[in-house]
């Protein structure tokens, strides 16, 4: 396939960026989207230009490193990560726009690379269970009913990619935070810090400059791991309960 990719080029956080057109040739439908970008980069290097910077690592859809906006959609036209999107989703001659995640909470570092460390700070604020190492009780001491375990699991699959934020018109981090809260709060192990967890995580989320949630639902549509909108309901419920308790 022969394509034109229009890539966002921005040399640093404080410089202006712009979309630049690049023709790429010899693209096979078996290539992943990132392999297409690799091909473009080899072309650029050969012609003495700077390759396009983008984040990636596992290329298996699990590390959450990769992520760009493709033709206006976070991770592109399919419900998956950018590394698992394949060029068979496109046709010969297509013009493809590639841009970084856009959100106040994710400043651009260079080209397609953004700073997602705000997600780490949300977790640091309470997205954990206090389990000192070395002396945990036997794993079978607390059976977890399968429905609870499954619910926890479904939410634990979040890879922290940030597509939800990029897709949200308000740049909200609700889905990400909701996934973690739903994971930990549905387990017996997560109960002691249940209320404090949600208050601290939501506080941090706001302080990091993420927008509010207006239930537009774009986040779940873009989420490669299928974190459901109902998790946001859970977060809201947990928050209200915790806030009421805190006020008492």
């Amino acid at each position, binding site marked *: 396939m022969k394509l034109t990719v229009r890539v966002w080029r921005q040399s640093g956080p404080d410089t202006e960026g712009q979309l630049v057109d690049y023709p790429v040739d010899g693209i*096979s439908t*078996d*290539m*992943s989207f*990132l392999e297409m970008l*690799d091909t473009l980069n*080899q072309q650029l*290097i*050969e012609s003495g*230009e*700077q*390759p396009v*910077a983008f*984040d990636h*690592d*596992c*290329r*298996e*859809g*699990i*590390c*959450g*490193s990769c992520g760009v906006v493709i033709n206006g959609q976070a991770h592109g036209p399919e419900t998956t990560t950018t590394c*698992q999107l*394949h060029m*068979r989703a496109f046709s010969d001659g297509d013009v493809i726009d590639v841009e970084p995640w856009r959100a106040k909470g994710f400043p651009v*570092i*260079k080209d397609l*690379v953004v*700073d997602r*460390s705000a*997600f*780490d700070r949300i*977790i*640091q*604020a309470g997205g*954990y269970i*206090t*389990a000192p*190492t*070395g002396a*945990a*009780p*036997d*794993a*079978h001491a*607390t*059976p977890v009913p*399968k429905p609870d*375990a499954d619910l*926890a*699991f479904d939410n*634990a*699959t979040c*890879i*922290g990619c940030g597509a939800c934020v990029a897709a949200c018109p308000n740049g909200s981090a609700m889905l990400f935070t909701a996934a973690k809260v739903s*994971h930990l709060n549905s*387990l017996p*192990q*997560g109960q002691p810090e249940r209320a404090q967890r949600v208050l601290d995580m939501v506080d941090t989320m706001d302080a990091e400059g993420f927008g509010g949630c207006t239930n537009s639902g774009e986040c779940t549509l873009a989420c490669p791991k299928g974190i459901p909108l109902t998790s946001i309901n859970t977060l809201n419920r947990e928050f209200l309960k915790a806030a009421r308790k805190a006020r008492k």
Partner: protein
Amino acid sequence: MGELSMLDYTIGEPITDTKAPSGPIDERWSARKFSAKLVNPANRRKHRVIVVGTGLAGGSAGATLAEQGYHVVQFCFQDSPRRAHSVAAQGGINAAKNYRNDGDSVHRLFYDTVKGGDFRSRESNVYRLAEVSAQIIDQAVAQGVPFAREYGGLLDTRSFGGVQVQRTFYARGQTGQQLLIGAYQALSRQIDAGNVELHPRTEMLDLIVVDGRARGIVARDLVTGEVTTHLADAVVLATGGYGNVFYLSTNAKGSNASAIWRAHKRGAYFANPCFTQIHPTCIPRSGDHQSKLTLMSESLRNDGRIWVPKEKQDPRPPSEIPEDERDYYLERLYPSFGNLVPRDIASRAAKNICDAGYGVGPGGLGVYLDFADAIQRLGRPAVEARYGNLFDMYQRITAENPYEVPMRIYPAIHYTMGGLWVDYDLQSTIPGMFVIGEANFSDHGANRLGASALMQGLADGYFVLPATLNDYIGQGGFTDVTLDDPAVVEAQTGVRDRLERLLAVNGTRSVDSFHRELGLMMWDHCGMARTAEGLRKALERVPELRAEFWRDVRIPGTGEELNQELEKAARVADFLELAELLLLDALVREESCGGHFREEHQTPEGEAARDDENFSHVSAWEYGEKPVLHKEPLNFDYVHPTQRSYT
């Protein structure tokens, strides 16, 4: 010995592990813990410990050391600790819990692991690993790791290649992710508490050794390009394996050997570099553009059956090939283990059958992994529940539906059993530098059984290192090191000079083109099967390629910015050196064992022929003008070496 003199290396003094206590094997770890010095919690705060890496090994170590009171300074090259390569592990983690009452025990896990490693690992280490394995599961569950559960609410387990009990705990096909998130969350809590100072997007480029002890690292901030120096009382490397020396592998693209290779050049011995594991169930490559290979978890072999058509190049689609015209070659060759033979055996069998012309798919480099029987026996929903995400992943990559047509799989480089030499305390030959997880060489011998790398990484990080590091710190004697210390300045300038030299080459070839060429050569001559002739050929070519690299590599941009080509170049430059040691080690080890298969050394049935008389040792290489080989003899008092048989 005329032959060996051709090679550029010398034999040094034998090496021994002086930290493992003697006495009954089941008492050694308790004995070591009891004899280890303790450090008063109030004094721990005064000690800085550097941890490089945030995978299962580094993440668990950082969280635990910080919780114990040490001031931890931690690094990773990804933007977040949660993205370390451990996140990709799919299949599961072993533990001797015997929840199934199927005859499992610490001793059996120990036995299976020593045997699985083809008698090239240390008994003391492996026993300890089996001993702490059960605690790892307790720890992870307490952290909220959502392992698979049965309807009664108890944990589910399954079995993995090379064993006959069900001791593998798993979290769908995302065990690594879930365990890593557990460690990452524990680490996050310590970051918030101010006990861990985290440096993401920062890469260690050298080790600082002062008065013979590891005292810090030189690193590069990957966003600003700034070269920074960090000092501490001990350094822990948890930087993962070096499988990417082969270019195409199942490892994450950023995985690299720089940290351990730099430490090797500073005096840490490198053990058994030639022990690399090839995983039998990867998606075959589809073309020259391929940037990495994708693993299909080995757990699939629990229910999938492996076969090829009996007819060479049978043009029929698999569904039209009747049962009696299929060769279920693993079941035929290894009746008691069948599709669950260990990885090295399954990989070699796949290669052999493809080499003989029976392979399927493009280029004949693939075999079928078929779920038709399982779907019929268990029903599609049950198969979906067990392997759904793996099936989706396969379909996404190949555009074929594995519920309807069998998967095609082929072996790929996956894991490196070699790594820096460490003693029972996980301390390298540089005092104060500890090495944990895949970065060290210990525990797996010549072959790694499935679900045991996660176990080892977490055992090292949560349980072993936190006990042994105390002993080192407790011995004290730390002088103050300042930034103007000559050793510090030398390391720092060395790093800057090297980056400048790389940028100054300004040649014509991309970093990737060198990496691909190196990888292909390594796969051809040092992959699933190795011969003296091939290894010699590669040993001639690698230095040439290295020279070409330094003459002709092109790295656009500067060192004062985010420059991913520069990052890659520094890593590939190290792979180009490590590759040579790997080849040399493979050439010198004139036997076959586990993942190291020398064609000259095989049984009449084509199985690996070990030479216990001459090679029952760890090869620990010292860096120098010429590499120096130190041998650590291995003793087997509890599991007696036998021909590994899985028939």
